[in-house]
């Protein structure tokens, strides 16, 4: 304890900003705020799902498994806690990402199925929901990219000399980032095996 205090006093005399303490604070805050934006946009998507499911149900009741898949994936997303602490715990972030990825997969299966229902596709409500979903997916992408950048900046700051000494003393660790492996999983569309009717030319 005494040793710690001595070190602290020495640091204070040097001026904390010189050791990157303030930079670490700034970056930490940036990571937090960009994470909450990510969660916010994912939440927005989750809120859309029930409406989307209901609107599809009206036209395509026989697609029970797909609809059920979406509903279950949505429930799973709800059960994963997206607290601000997730950014400090790679395991929790993995879990969060896996749940969101599953929902992405289920949603894209649903969208493939809707191709077979021209009436549904021309429904005004469904159209609005679809454009909202597209917009939300885009916002998620933007928010994730900003989070990735913020975490990179923070991690580089925590690992470079002399800031790493400051980080060590104050217990700032590297933060978890979205992983490339899952990135690939999420971005590939799932295979659906029934004979799809050729999509109408746009």
């Amino acid at each position: 304890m005494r040793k710690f205090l001595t070190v602290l006093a020495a640091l204070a005399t040097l001026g904390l900003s010189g050791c990157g303490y303030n930079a670490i604070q700034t970056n930490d805050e940036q990571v937090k705020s960009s994470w909450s934006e990510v969660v916010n946009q994912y939440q927005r998507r989750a809120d859309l799902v029930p409406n989307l499911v209901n609107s599809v149900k009206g036209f395509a009741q026989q697609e029970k498994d797909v609809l059920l898949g979406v509903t279950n994936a949505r429930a799973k997303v709800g059960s994963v806690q997206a607290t601000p602490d997730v950014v400090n715990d790679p395991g929790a972030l993995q879990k969060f990402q896996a749940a969101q990825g599953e929902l992405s997969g289920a949603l894209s299966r649903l969208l493939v199925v809707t191709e077979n229902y021209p009436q549904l596709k021309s429904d005004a409500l469904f159209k609005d929901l679809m454009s909202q979903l597209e917009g939300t997916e885009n916002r998620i992408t933007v928010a994730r990219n900003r989070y990735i950048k913020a975490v990179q900046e923070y991690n580089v700051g925590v690992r470079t000399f002399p800031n790493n000494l400051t980080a060590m003393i104050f217990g700032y660790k590297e933060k978890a980032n979205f992983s490339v492996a899952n990135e690939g999983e999420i971005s590939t569309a799932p295979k659906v095996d029934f004979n799809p009717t050729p999509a109408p030319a746009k």
Partner: protein
Amino acid sequence: MRLVQAGLLALLLFCCGAPAFADVAVPALTGRVVDQTGTLSSSEQSELSGKLADFEKRKGSQIGVLIVPTTEPETIAQFSIRVAEAWKLGRSKVDDGAILLVAKNDRKLRIEVGNGLEGALTDATTRRIIDEIIAPRFKTGDFAGGIKAGAERMMKIIDGEPLSPPPEPSEWRADTALFDQLFEYAPFLLFGAFIGGAFLRQMLGRLLGSLVAGGLVMAAVWLIVSSVIAGAICGLAAFFITLIGDSALSTGGSSGRSGSSGGGWSSGSSSSSSSSGGFSGGGGSFSGGGASGSW
């Protein structure tokens, strides 16, 4: 291990978000309408940017129109958010900017909406503007008409939503009126700063006296011109004048004066000019709202 991690990080950087070299560069913001394809005639361009400028005067929202040949290899959404981040249309903190982007050879278009306008120009609304107003005209080859109709509809929709009133002269773009006002009071302020500064220095000692003098001048200027920046500059000048003291009075006076009128103020572009030269984004932020479409 570190090396592997660094490698992974680099890979990650490469895969997500970091623009590769092959990406289309974001065009310079030369005006409210930037056309890299020669689609619009110069009269059409100036008419449209005049309308957008009037709209900004009235509402405060900045709308930009950008026509590029292609956004490949990026998707239009990726390119669009980069443009939005570079141009920063819309007022800072209000974030009421929007961009109508057309990638002519890709046959794709997008309306990118700033955070503050997402309530008015919702995803569904922008989608409908694209599908119902712009795309049909583009299909017939009427690009100018489609862009004009789309931009006008965007303005109408924004009009339906209460926004905060148009900006007062912002701190970053002082217009000359502000300094005319300041110069009216300048002798007064300088005189007050000298006398008061000397008095305060006697009373409170050099450093504290200077600090108080600077603070008082800053507050006074801020009240008169209602610009924090101008206040801070004059306050700093007063602080140093008082600090340096009587010995440098004669030179301090002139340097203090230039401190309050120089400092790069003239380079600030005025927001009221409707010409393409003086247009710049107000610092609005975007987070990917809007919709894309094709024709």
